[in-house]
């Protein structure tokens, strides 16, 4: 039981880092990322590709240590965010949404096709994991410790940022951009920094997951992940870092448990449609929350 809880907490914490990133982008600086899964994938694949030991069919066989590969994944997700951000942040706000949507699908496509680099549709198996020598139990505890530490660091850093002048300007910009521009703030640069930082967190999340599981493949990075992270943020209350983490745990818990309950709650005829029903539920949660409870289910929009 304990080992399952440890596992669950590890995965939920990894996902929380991505949600914190989305919170920074949407909750705090009001930018819409429609391709969260793309940035998560970049982080995951960077770590995987750089860590893989020498394998004949792979182009990159550098077998870098975990910490180095992790740092590299931050760099690649930042680069991708810059590419998209520089293109769109001077323009209308919904162009970012369209561009990030493109990133989401493009990354999955590239991962699936660039076989010498990413292993193609087969993915990469046997990613070296840190502390593997400690055995299964030792690894679980060690990795959980790494993840929780990183989560705490990210949370603390984001809280500090939020209360800093930078954070105040971001929130002001969200409320009324023209005022900020009139006051002489470089709106584009502020937006970019928030967007890139958020994306870096998403990449970190992806890298941590790949390192935890030891395998990666294009099938892990399907569009549904974008909707899941959004749901986690919305349920927790966008704008609140604490809400982001809480929302992640709640939504992930429900999602994994739903498999157990669908069998109990639905009559057999409907069970096959449960997947569609699940998606309808997520869609409804997103739309209804907007209409009826914009501060989210758990938190307040202007919370600490």
């Amino acid at each position, binding site marked *: 039981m304990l080992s*399952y809880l440890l596992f669950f907490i590890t995965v939920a914490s990894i996902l929380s880092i991505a949600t914190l990133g989305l919170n920074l982008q949407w909750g705090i600086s009001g930018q819409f990322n429609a391709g969260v899964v793309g940035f998560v994938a970049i982080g995951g694949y960077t770590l995987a590709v750089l860590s893989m030991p020498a394998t004949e069919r792979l182009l990159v066989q550098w077998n870098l240590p975990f910490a180095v590969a992790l740092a590299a994944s931050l760099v690649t997700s930042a680069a991708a965010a810059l590419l998209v951000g520089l293109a769109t942040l001077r323009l209308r706000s919904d162009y970012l949404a369209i561009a990030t949507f493109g990133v989401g699908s493009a990354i999955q496509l590239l991962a699936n096709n660039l076989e010498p680099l990413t292993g193609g549709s087969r993915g990469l198996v046997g990613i070296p994991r840190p502390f593997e020598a400690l055995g299964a139990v030792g690894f679980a505890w060690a990795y959980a410790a790494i993840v929780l530490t990183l989560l705490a660091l990210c949370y603390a850093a984001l809280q500090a940022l939020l209360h800093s002048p930078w954070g105040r300007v971001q929130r002001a910009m969200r409320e009324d951009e023209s005022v900020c521009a009139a006051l002489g703030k470089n709106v584009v640069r502020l937006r970019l920094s928030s967007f890139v930082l958020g994306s870096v967190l998403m990449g970190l999340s992806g890298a941590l997951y790949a390192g935890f599981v030891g395998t990666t493949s294009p*099938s892990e990075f399907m569009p549904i992940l974008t909707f899941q992270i959004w749901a986690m943020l919305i349920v927790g209350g966008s704008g609140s870092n604490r809400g982001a983490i809480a929302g992640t745990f709640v939504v992930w818990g429900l*999602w994994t448990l739903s498999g*157990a309950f669908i069998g109990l709650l639905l009559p057999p005829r409907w069970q*096959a449609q*449960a997947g569609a029903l699940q998606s309808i539920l997520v869609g409804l949660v997103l739309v209804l929350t907007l209409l009826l409870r914009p501060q989210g289910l758990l938190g307040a929009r202007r919370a600490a």
Partner: protein
Amino acid sequence: MPILRRLAVPAAASLLVLASGQAAAQQDCPKLGGVLALTGAQGAIGKVIADAGKLAVDQVNKAGGVKGCQVEFVVRDDTSQPSVGLDAARFLVDVQKVHAIVGLVGSGTALQVVNSVSVPNKIPTVACCAVTPALTKLAEEGKTGGYFFRTIPVARSTALVHATTAIDKGYKKPVIMYINNDFGNGVAPDTKRAIEKLGGGVAGMVPYAENQPSYRSDVQKALAMNPDALILIGLSQDGTAVLRDWFALGGTQNVILHNTMRSPDVLKNVGEKFLEKAVGIDNAPASGPSADAFSRDFQAAYNRPAVGPGLQTMYDAAAVTLLAMQAAPKLDGPSIRDALRAVQDPQGEVVGTGVDGLKKGLDALKAGKKIRYVGATGPFTFDKNGDVIGPMLVWKVQGGNIVTERTFTTEEMQAIEKKVGL
């Protein structure tokens, strides 16, 4: 946050219930875990596959159970997402303390579960529906500890039959169109290599992306190679679309299809008149008492024919695992793992499917005798990597029905494998 506080009590309550349920369960009664896609993209087929597994468990229980207990089959949904599948497997092993895992639809889930749960926790895992060669590779590198098995033939076997059929039919320059995913990328290159090793040639290879709006340009690329035949390796959805465009653009009727397209829907959507010369390959359920018994029992239990991917392989995965649990001296990972091969003893008494067959097997094992399980997929043996090679068949369309043209026995398949040297 008020809502968190409100959730705390029910959350604690459910945890207590789970923990107590686990404590109350007898630790020495066999528990079988299933990780399947019951919802999501693969949900439609996953649900039926779960039923096939359930049938095996029910029949074993009717035949007296394993080690004096009724076997509990706990199925968890991976919602067609690998990370959820991993969580499900972790839950099954850590919380519900299953002794083995069966199922695993899709390579993403299979890889994650095997890598993170089966191997570290020493849980024998018998996959019914994951064909990725990556798992064979893992086994070859010694990274599975022998805990991974599958009852579904790897891509390689189907490639061998594709190749042999092309050569037998005298196709000199077939073009291979294949879906650019894990499955297609496994079968297609092997098919090309096999054809070449058997002395033939290939006009070219044309991969196509899955879930595309149209395959017309891919078909045109293939046609531009002037092939005399088409070997199509894809799933039924895209395969149908490709075939339709192929014929519409004037492609030849010399077509070899994969087992994914062996269905009345494909027949209907493509049209019989175009498929007169088409043949396809598939795993051969032994046309014998075992396979027939399964089909009958499945129809009787669920009121639907045993047609569809993964049914026979799932039944066998569950059945062979339960037999192994009976044969194993102790209900732990290493013992069950070794027993999984032991119940395929070539000198053993032949034991089939159905309540009677399984009872015969269980009783023989209880009496300390050796058995050889012949399942719904026919006779099969696990090779050193946990993969199976079994009999295959070639089918064709005749009078609106799908009929078998010829079969390859396990021995013949092994001979071809040796000849091709893959």
